[in-house]
């Protein structure tokens, strides 16, 4: 599991490697947002009737809301009328029936990114849904998954083939009016993944969605809905990249997870949106609402995230622990460098008896970046014997960066046991000396210490992702290590 420090050193000095642009003819909406655009978008996606109404409801609620300003972030005002809310490669107009029909240029893009879309060259059997700007390009292993009854497809396809399922669950975890960005997403979301794991099924392979923003002047608004029915299990991975551009692009996604009795969902993210250059120009605004509900007893939802990209991250993956004995977990490494800003953390809402949650958040700030942990642990009166353990540690590299911790603890149940710990420090001289004394170079020593700092989180990631995450860590800290 330990990518040696040599690997990391090789990666240091490497620039953002996924920053290329794919030249494609696209079908885009003109910039701007009004009711007509929402309707047009809905028509484009061939939404069922209820969906159009649902979107319009979201749009109306969005109009009454303000950009949230409570986070420890400085955000240039966003002109929502300057964004194009739909962009798709022209070649996908008719919808390719199989992988062979997909535009080779698109396949090339994913190949370059190292995402396996060809089922024969499978990587440890991961089923992938590839989302390119506003549409899903391809979903692999669908047949194999359907053998066991697992539905894994783009959400637009799910709306066509399984509207009753989508209707039953969509917006039940994150309602349209939940917050400003969720409302915007509800109105204009274009694609995303839909997963349904039937009762008692253990999903035979890892499911994965790969998001790519390519077109300029667009935003990406995807919506993911994962339902794990009673006693089922699924592990889901999410990755993302974008080209290097001087403008800031908005990515406002919503992820909803539903775990029924005894079900378990493991959701892992390696977020590597373009972070902007060393002067803070460009980069993605990553404003994401992620929430899971443990609806049934003994259910479990686990979030693992490695956040290295994006100019600004605003993201709080949360668990609502409704079921008795339900478990929520959050493991996070957030790395910021140059002028990146991150305000991220988790919310654990304890409602069921004996519900347990763990939050492990590691922040690494370098350059002139600012990173904040913001979290809430709330124990309702009904949550007898609730248990939470929270640990957030920050590592500072350089005297121009900032690391902040804003935990909120609200407890209404005397039998609850809540622990919160936070610490902030730089790499200590003692640790460095210890490594140097054993013959390691300063660079190696720092890499090793940083990797050790993040280990608790990395060990929660599926294998392939763990390797990628470690590599990303090296790139993101380029210039600040040593």
């Amino acid at each position, binding site marked *: 599991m330990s990518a040696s420090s040599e690997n990391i050193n090789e990666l240091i000095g490497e620039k953002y490697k996924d920053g290329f642009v794919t030249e494609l003819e696209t079908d885009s909406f003109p910039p701007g947002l009004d009711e007509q655009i929402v309707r047009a978008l809905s028509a484009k996606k061939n939404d069922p009737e209820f969906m159009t109404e649902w979107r319009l409801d979201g749009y109306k609620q969005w109009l009454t809301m303000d950009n949230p300003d*409570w986070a420890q972030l400085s955000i240039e005002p966003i002109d929502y009328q300057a964004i194009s809310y739909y962009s798709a490669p022209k070649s996908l107009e008719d919808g390719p029936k199989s992988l062979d029909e997909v535009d080779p240029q698109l396949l090339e893009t994913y190949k370059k990114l190292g995402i396996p879309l060809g089922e024969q060259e499978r990587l440890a059997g991961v089923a992938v849904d590839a989302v390119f700007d506003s549409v899903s390009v391809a979903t692999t292993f669908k047949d194999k998954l359907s053998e066991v009854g697992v539905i894994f497809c783009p959400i637009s396809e799910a709306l066509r083939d399984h509207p009753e399922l989508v209707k039953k669950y969509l917006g039940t975890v994150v309602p349209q009016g939940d917050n400003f960005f969720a409302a915007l997403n509800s109105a204009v979301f274009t694609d995303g993944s839909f997963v349904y794991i039937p009762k008692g099924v253990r999903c035979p392979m890892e499911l994965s969605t790969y998001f790519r923003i390519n077109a300029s002047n667009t935003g990406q608004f995807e919506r993911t809905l994962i339902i794990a029915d009673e006693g089922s299990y699924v592990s889901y991975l999410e990755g993302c990249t974008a080209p290097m551009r001087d403008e800031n692009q908005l990515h406002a996604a919503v992820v909803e997870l539903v775990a029924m009795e005894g079900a378990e969902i493991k959701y892992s993210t390696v977020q590597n949106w373009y972070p902007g250059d060393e002067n803070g120009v460009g980069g993605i605004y990553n404003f994401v609402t992620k929430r899971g509900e443990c609806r049934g007893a003994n259910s479990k939802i686990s979030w693992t995230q490695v956040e290295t990209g994006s100019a600004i991250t605003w993201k709080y993956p949360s668990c609502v622990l409704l079921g008795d004995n339900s478990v929520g977990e959050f493991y996070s490494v957030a790395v910021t460098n140059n002028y990146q800003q991150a305000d991220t953390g988790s919310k654990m809402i304890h409602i069921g008896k004996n519900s347990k949650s763990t939050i492990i958040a590691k922040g690494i700030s370098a350059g002139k970046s600012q990173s904040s942990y913001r979290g809430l642990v709330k124990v309702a009166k009904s949550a007898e014997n609730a248990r939470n353990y929270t640990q957030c540690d920050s590592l500072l590299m*350089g005297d121009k960066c*900032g690391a902040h*911790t804003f935990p*909120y*603890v*609200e*407890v*209404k149940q005397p039998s609850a046991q809540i*622990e919160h710990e936070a610490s902030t420090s730089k790499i200590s001289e003692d640790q460095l000396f210890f490594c140097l004394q054993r013959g390691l170079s300063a660079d190696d020593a720092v890499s090793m210490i940083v990797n050790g700092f993040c280990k608790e989180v990395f060990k929660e990631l599926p294998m392939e992702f763990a390797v990628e995450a470690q590599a990303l860590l090296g790139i993101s800290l380029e210039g600040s290590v040593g």
Partner: protein
Amino acid sequence: MNQDLKITDFYQSEYEKQRGNLAGSELGWLKVQREQAIKNFSENGFPSPREEEWRYTNVRPIERKQFTSVADITSTVDEALLRGHRLESADSLVFIDGQFSAERSDLPQLPEGAVVKNMADALASHSELLEAKLGRALHDESHGFLDFNSAFFSDGLFIYLPKNSALSKPLQLLFVSTKQDVAQLSTIRNLLVIEEGASVELIETWVGEAGHCYLNAAVTEVLAGENSSIKMTKLQAESNKSYHFGGTYVKQAKHSIFNHQSFSFGGALVRNDLHTGLRTAADVTLDGLFLVGGRQHVDNHTRISHTQPHATSREQYKGILSDKARGVFQGRVIVQEGAQKTNSEMNNHNLLLSDNAEIDAKPQLEIYADDVKCAHGVTVGQLDDESIFFLQSRGIDSERAKNMLTFAFANEQVEKIELADLKLLVQEQLLKQFPQEGIEKEWL
């Protein structure tokens, strides 16, 4: 909304009525400050829970009442209450319903050049010094209660200690609220100017007639000079129907030491603000205990701002909540750019003793420097079953065992008090919170 308008209008007209009689009303500079403050207050009113800093404390009950200052204080003072809280070892200044009572006070012997006076008199005799110092420790803060206090303050303590001087004894401030026909308002403003190398120990004691409803809105400013040493203890044992806002704002110069201990037992709705700014190698220790029951609400809000290198801060607050009480702890540590080698530690431990009690804790770290060591921890829990069992196995019934353990949890904070008779006074207050069998004074 209408209600808000009414209450600010009410205080605006109160201000106009009292304008001529307020302390230092003949001073032009003070008048400007007061006018500005009442103007701010009229615009903004009391803080609302929509403000992040007031998120868990709704001061609506204070807005619903109309508190008025009372002029005549002589007849109704409960002398026994006063005696019961007086410290043998300390000199004292006594304030009754916000007015200085000279005959009940024991003013200290003063070193040369030192001033220890009530604020109203000091405004007459040391106007220039006050003009230069008043409001200087407020860290550019503003909220409803600060404006409210600045507009209305009637009296308080003023201390000036020149270089390397010290008072021979600790100084106790006794704030007594009496039983009146109306819900009365006391607005105390204290100012401590402690010059280089000087030291002082101050004890604030807040008591009130049981069962009576009143409002205390107090502000204390401390300007701590280089190498100065200041020790403060605040014992708040107000009537359970009263409202209390107490803000302490400190500016610490190089190498100064500030120790603060806070004990909150009384009050229906209590908010303590404690903010300090640290310059090079300054040192601060904040300790607190809040033990409340019934429907009490107590909010402790601390902020430590490290502005320069090498400063150290330590903080520990403990909360015990029973019945339907609600406790709030917010501790914020800010390390500003360049404040390298900062060492900061904050702890908050809370015991919830009943199904309907609630605690909201919000420790915060904001760090803009890299060579620092900062940590904070929060726990919420209950008494350890094994410890209870241990005591039970020695023949102590469970009720008694629980009381003993709860008392021990609280007593850790009381044990930190050095002054013997103050420790005893606080312990007595603490024991009053344990009406059940179990804790006997002889154990102490």
